[in-house]
């Protein structure tokens, strides 16, 4: 049963990969540019913005995709060039693990409080 599950998951991942590769560039550009902040705008994503900066980033993404780079490589490239500020989806590292962890800890903590308040009998 477990092997079967792994097989399915592997298949799904593979399927996604293949479809992503075959997909039209514009979908891919939309997907990536939605995750990027337009650095010269006020709280807009690259996707939403029509500024020169956003347009040049979109062109860059298109070029990178044609060069065969995948999503993560593009994010890495942009991050090395513009810093983490450009990416809307913060990666988990020593500076951001608390960001992801605090809500989850609070959730567990809240659950414990409720258990104390409720009689199980």
């Amino acid at each position: 049963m477990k092997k079967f599950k792994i097989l399915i998951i592997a298949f799904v991942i593979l399927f996604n990969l293949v479809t992503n590769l075959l997909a039209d560039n514009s979908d891919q550009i939309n997907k990536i540019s939605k995750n990027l902040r337009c650095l010269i705008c006020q709280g807009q994503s690259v996707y939403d913005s029509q500024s020169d900066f956003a347009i040049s980033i979109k062109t860059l993404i298109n070029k990178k995709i044609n060069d065969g780079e995948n999503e993560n490589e593009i994010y890495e490239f942009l991050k090395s060039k513009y810093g983490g500020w450009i990416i809307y989806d913060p990666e988990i590292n020593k500076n951001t693990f608390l960001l992801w962890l605090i809500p989850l800890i609070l959730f567990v903590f809240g659950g414990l409080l409720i258990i104390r308040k409720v009689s199980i009998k």
Partner: protein
Amino acid sequence: MSNQVGNYSLYIALLVSILLIFKSYKFKSNSSKNLDSKIFSLLSIQSLMILISFASLIYAFIISDFSNETVYNNSHTAKPLFYKISGTWGNHEGSLILWLLVLSIFLFIFFIKSNNQSNNYRVLTVLFQEIIIFGFLLFILFTSNPFKNLFPIPIEGTGLNPILQDPALAIHPPVLYLGYVGTSIIFSSSLAAIVCGIVNNNWAKHIKKWIIISWIFLTIGILLGSVWAYYELGWGGFWFWDPVENVSLMPWFCLTALLHTIIVLEKRNLFQSWTVILCITTFALSMSGTFLVRSGILNSVHTFANDPSRGIFILCFLFFLIFLSIIIFFIYQKNISKNLNKSFLISKETAILINNWFMMFFLSVVLIGTVYPIFLEVINGLKISIGPPFYQKLIVPFLIPFFLFMALAPKLKWIRDNVYRINIQQFIQLIISIIISYFLIIKFGISYVFAIPLFGLGFFLFFLTIKDFFSKDSSLSQKLSHFGFSLFIISILLNGVLAKEYSSNMKVGDEREYMNKTIKFENIKVVQESNYKSIVGEFKILDDRSNLSMKPEIRIYDQPRTLTSEADIISTIYSDNFLVFNILKDDGYYNVRYQHKPLMIWIWLSVILISFGGILSYFKRND
């Protein structure tokens, strides 16, 4: 002239505020009857003064009195009258006067409406509320006075930001403020109640109306902002997890939790301390929202121009209020009659606790996502962005159990219920919902990991809330709000996975094929309106069944010089067609973006249903 009137009436209001704080503080020792009428008259004077100052600001905007700095900075003679008026609160100074006006009027109404409560409690509420009013008056008078004189008097103003010149956004701030400020009454009254030791079912019944009314306004206020963002910002989305949006969502989570908890306090006299904590937190969140927006530390499309001294003032004031409420809470906590009865595992009480549990979790995600970048930057200078992917990753998986609880919980009884009431019929419905979602996901090729349980439980909740209309278990208002919520969830889920978008650079005469549709760019027209120039694109969207002609606009405003894109949206009950275009540098080419968004209108309608449930509950006689 109006400058002087406005200014002096604010000073009088400040004076009255000091008097009221003094009087209501002294009230504890003597309890003469006629103090009631004294406070009443002082409150009326204060509200009247603030009303006069607000009215004089509106007047200055209407007659375009540019000797007033606020009017000069935010208005223009060529603006339509409606936007001259709405410009009053479309800026920092004016919006604070509005905030203050609502604060004082709410207190006034509270004082009249609460005459069946003990005098001690009422006067204490006035005391706490006056402290807030006093703080805001100081803030307005010394850091953001809207009545500053300009000399020499300029001939023309600099204009209102064109993206704010919109009917939905004209009424969005007042509505949202009614919600925000309503929480101040809840805050003051909960502190008063804890000092008087009356945190019980009687108080719950009395304050519940205020909770409901604040919640309704907050819900509608958020809705209006969201609708505006949808058609005005030209992005085609309705929620961007922008910090300023988050700031309005946080008190909403808290208030929704409170809305449920207050029922437990009313019916079962349980969770007293928790209710008070929620009351305090809700207001603290509303205040910190103001702080975050006004201080300018948030990077957002919504922020007005601002300066740091304002931020520091609000921050100090906020800390003072939180500190005050924590001290009061701990000193008077012994006043809370401890009801040590535990609730049973399978009961409505526990179900509501679970609701609160999830609300607090969602709140913590949004809160931490909003403030974490600020702290990180202060601590080690790193700038990170937290956007939609973060919120989706943390919130969406938790929606699955949340839907399950929400579907089953409303049918539970108070005190103690039996697990066997969750019967075979519901189990079958759950299976059917999962199967439906399975086929849906296969059909549309959705690749999200949790899609099957998420959609399955979404449908399950939807079916059960519909079925609930035929049961006699709970009140109509609750059924309506819960049904609205499930409709909201279904619409958002389907909209999220089925929305299609296409963007391309086109010039007049071009045709593009997209998903068996043809997008034709037929013509372009330039129209001169009173305060802007409009470039209207004429498009046709054709497929085998329909022929839509759409006319998105680009508006070029002169004062201040700004370009805005006005999307053209054709809404039907099935889907929205959304078309927007932008000028490109290359001559004659425009960036055209077409979006097909299923069930869009149901997202708005469902939120209206949710708040309508609240309205029903507000007008319910006794329950």
